[in-house]
């Protein structure tokens, strides 16, 4: 039995890329427990294995070794079809470059996962419009991605990730292409997701994103080297940040 309140549980999770000389242990025997509702940030230098870890957690790549559970269900040994089905229904992915379908409108992008999961067009559309409203883009539903700003595109992508009420949203450098204002919009959105109990794993090298998570894991060479829980409320006054004295 595994704990029912864990959204994600991994033991000895490993991924080896390449052969011979080019062999890389991108993820190296990682243990990870993510309680349901937690916002977890994974940080570390480029090439340390963050994206690979996220791909393993979401079933985009097969594990080389180790065990993986999603909401108590063992998923590392699922067959391809079962894994594809799980990816579609239980995981919401968000990528740095949005991965929106350029020829589809915002609302069509958002409803796509629900349609693929077998929802009726009416249900899918209604839910997509609700989600666009939730990310503050109700008035942009009919726009094509090319007609939206980077921040708006990422919010469409986040709405799409929520389409099937996933067990976890997995985001890979979601603010990597965004300016400060758009980054803050996305962070406010993540905050509102957190308040609804959404489990969120965010790979990022943006310290602002990491600082607003509940917990920050640091990776180096495929391993976790630090694991910090950030306090919910500030300890000192904000004025301490300025050092304005008499």
């Amino acid at each position, binding site marked *: 039995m595994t704990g029912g309140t864990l959204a994600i549980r991994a033991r000895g999770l490993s991924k080896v890329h390449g052969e011979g000389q080019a062999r890389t242990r991108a993820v190296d025997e990682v243990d990870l427990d993510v309680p349901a509702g937690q916002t977890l940030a994974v940080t570390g*230098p480029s090439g340390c294995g963050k994206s690979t870890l996220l791909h393993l957690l979401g079933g985009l790549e097969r594990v080389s070794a180790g065990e993986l559970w999603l909401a108590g269900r063992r998923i590392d040994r699922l067959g391809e079809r079962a894994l594809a089905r799980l990816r579609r229904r239980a995981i919401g992915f968000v990528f740095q470059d949005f991965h929106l379908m350029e020829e589809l409108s915002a609302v069509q992008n958002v409803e796509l996962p629900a349609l693929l999961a077998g929802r009726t067009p009416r249900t899918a559309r209604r839910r997509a419009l609700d989600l666009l409203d939730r990310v503050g883009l109700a008035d942009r539903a009919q726009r094509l991605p090319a007609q939206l700003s980077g921040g708006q595109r990422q919010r469409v992508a986040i709405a799409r990730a929520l389409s099937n009420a996933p067990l976890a949203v997995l985001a890979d450098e979601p603010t990597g292409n965004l300016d*400060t*204002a758009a980054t*803050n919009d996305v*962070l*406010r959105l993540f*905050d509102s997701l957190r308040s609804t109990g959404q489990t969120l794993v965010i790979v990022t090298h943006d*310290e*602002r994103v*990491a*600082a*607003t998570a509940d917990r*920050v894991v640091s990776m180096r060479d495929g391993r976790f*080297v*630090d694991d*910090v829980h*950030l*306090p919910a409320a*500030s*300890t*000192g*006054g*904000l*004025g*301490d*940040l*300025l050092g*304005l*004295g*008499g």
Partner: protein
Amino acid sequence: MQDVVLALLAKEPSHGYELRQRLRAALGPLGDTLNSGQVYVTLTRLEKAGLVSSARTGGRPDRPDRKVYDLTAAGHRRVADWLAEVSWTPRPELAEFHLKLAAARAARLADPLTLIDAHRRELMRRLRDAQRAALAEADGSMAGLLLEGVVLRLRADLRWLESCERVWSGHGERS
């Protein structure tokens, strides 16, 4: 703080509480720790230094709020000098931390990487406070602009700690 209060007075003769309101408008949540006392203490010091003059108004001379403060000629000159001056706080804490790591390693007193971890955690906590406050501000607010500056500085410090970690981890094993 003295220069800030002088500059706030440059607009027009004002009561202490009016200065405090102007300060709060500019600082937003960052001004919460500045109590009213601080403004009055500063005004008293400025008056002693001849940079500010005060006149009592109204019928309650016992209430400090009834005092209206104004800049003297010397006060005006000081404000002009302050605005023209390029002051940028140096960061002695960088050199101090750098030397702390070197000393800790040389005397085998502590693992530099442990010290770096402790600092990263503390800076992350501060960044969390600043970023949360920034998210609570509307886009384009004055306080949000100041918070963006605080956030950018903390990010720069965190990046430097990353460089420290990279170099120092090449000087020995992480436990």
